[in-house]
């Protein structure tokens, strides 16, 4: 026994307890992460299972018929597409340019801090408030009436803060040393932004914009009073079916359509309701996947 030298590095009692805590923390954080995934998977599986009888190419491409008890969801689908498109055409340039100003040009003074505060607060405004604001500002005050343009403007206002914030963050992630290098060769701020800063932050900026597609497509409240309608007759085929709504037309949209057939309309087959929801979720997942793939692609091209 005495021939064995005493171990100078023996574990103490506290360490043994510390190890136990370490393991517990590891396991519980892992569990919480798994808990996060379960609802996502449950929702998707449940939706697809319930929607299965309705899901088909015709469901996507046909217009609703017989008081929405037959046909498909083409009208709302294309309406949502144009809503998203027009709102991004409005919001993306404004948001990106504002982000560029705030990150690259603005000095740190009370006005800048005020604008930043306003952006943060705008992001926290509930979507129903955006809807009522859109009704007052675009529909009545600017006299647009309820139409695609008014709804798109409302959705644009709603998506702006996130576009501004993600643009700012993407620009801020470009190392300062690149800007310093440019300035010291005599480059103006705009030359620096155009040649170095924007090309190296475009993936982050576009990711922020694309993620807003999902938001714009999913929200019901902002379009509720500003342009969405329950049902409108549109062409079943041809060019007219591809571009069924003008900027001054009222339009159908997926989120509103889902709300209507789930709560306001009778005798709609259950699979239609779940089908519409599944298509919406599918759209969101598709858009997010595209944005992630795009980001990976752009990141692979930049190294510093």
């Amino acid at each position, binding site marked *: 026994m005495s021939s064995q030298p005493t171990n100078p590095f023996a574990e103490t009692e506290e360490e043994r307890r510390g190890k136990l805590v370490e393991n517990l923390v590891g396991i519980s954080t892992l569990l919480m992460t798994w808990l996060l995934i379960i609802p996502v998977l449950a929702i998707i599986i449940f939706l697809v299972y319930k929607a299965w009888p309705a899901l088909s190419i015709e469901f996507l491409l046909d217009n609703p018929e017989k008081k929405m008890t037959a046909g498909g969801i083409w009208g709302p689908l294309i309406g949502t597409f144009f809503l998203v498109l027009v709102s991004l055409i409005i919001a993306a340039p404004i948001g990106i340019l504002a982000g560029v100003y705030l990150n690259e040009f603005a000095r740190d003074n009370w006005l800048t801090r005020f604008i930043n505060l306003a952006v943060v607060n705008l992001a926290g405004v509930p979507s129903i408030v955006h809807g009522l604001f859109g009704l007052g500002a675009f529909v009545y005050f600017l006299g647009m009436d309820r139409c695609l343009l008014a709804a798109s403007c409302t959705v644009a206002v709603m998506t702006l803060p996130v576009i501004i914030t993600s643009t700012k963050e993407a620009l801020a992630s470009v190392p300062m040393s690149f800007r310093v*290098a*440019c300035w010291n*060769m*005599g480059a103006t701020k705009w030359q620096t932004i155009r040649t170095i800063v924007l090309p190296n932050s475009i993936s982050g900026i576009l990711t922020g914009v694309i993620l807003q597609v999902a938001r714009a497509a999913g929200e019901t409240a902002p379009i509720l009073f500003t342009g969405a309608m329950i049902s409108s007759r549109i062409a079943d085929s041809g060019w007219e079916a591809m571009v069924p709504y003008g900027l001054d037309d009222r339009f159908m949209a997926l989120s509103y359509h889902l709300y209507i057939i789930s709560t306001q309309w009778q005798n709609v087959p259950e699979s239609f309701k779940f089908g519409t929801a599944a298509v919406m979720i599918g759209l969101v997942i598709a858009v997010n996947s595209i944005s992630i793939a795009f980001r990976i692609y752009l990141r692979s091209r930049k190294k510093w």
Partner: protein
Amino acid sequence: MSTVAPQYVSTPFTAPEPEFIQDYSIRTNDLNLWYGDFQALMDVSVKIKKGIITGLIGPSGCGKTTLLRCFNRINERYGNVTTTGDIEILDKNIYDSDVSVRQLRRSVGMVFQRPNPLPISIYDNVLFGMGIHDAYKPLSKSERNDVVEEALREVDLWNTVKDRLKSRATTLTLEQQQKLCIARLLPLKPDIILMDEPCSALDAEGIEKVENLIESLRDEYTVVIVTHNMAQARRATDECIFMLLGEIIEHSKTSEMFLNPQHEKTEMYIQGRYG
């Protein structure tokens, strides 16, 4: 030959006047600079000779980098900076209203502590300066290639990178990156090259190579180099300016300063007793 301006008065701490008429690239007169309320430079009056390598030495926070940044007015980009006094570069007061900051920075280049090549190809890095000064478009493809080759040869980088000019500059080693950062200044035909501790991120071998390169820039360019490394100041500079707390303490030939410093503080610093 230079026309010696009338306000040019020698101060007690500057180098003794040589017999022949000396060209000066940089002169400052009672230069004061504040970052907000903090005064970083106090009545700095220096005359930096043309075509030699001048070292700026002194402990951290003494204003070396701040002084360097005055010479191309890049300090203005760092916000909340106030300056008083005159800076003359090539006998022109750079605060005159008819001075274009862009043209000033074109002729007064800067090299940084951490190599900062732009995240574009080696080739584009060398031509970047010409691009922003609209000197790039009129060149034919072969002229552009010549510009790149000449600049890279001058910094002894051509043979290493000539087969991968299109690869990203950030894939080079730090030493090569720093050489590239010097090379990209050259197509703009600068008169003065400012270097802010250009070797501190490099290993011993890199330091030697970059020092040799700086050595080869003498005569053609005026080089002002900030360094923390006393051995490097001794090896690589012709004159040294010792600064302390925003003031110039001593400005003399490097050999004189290191053999026979005039000020007790200089002596203590170069012997490493503080800093």
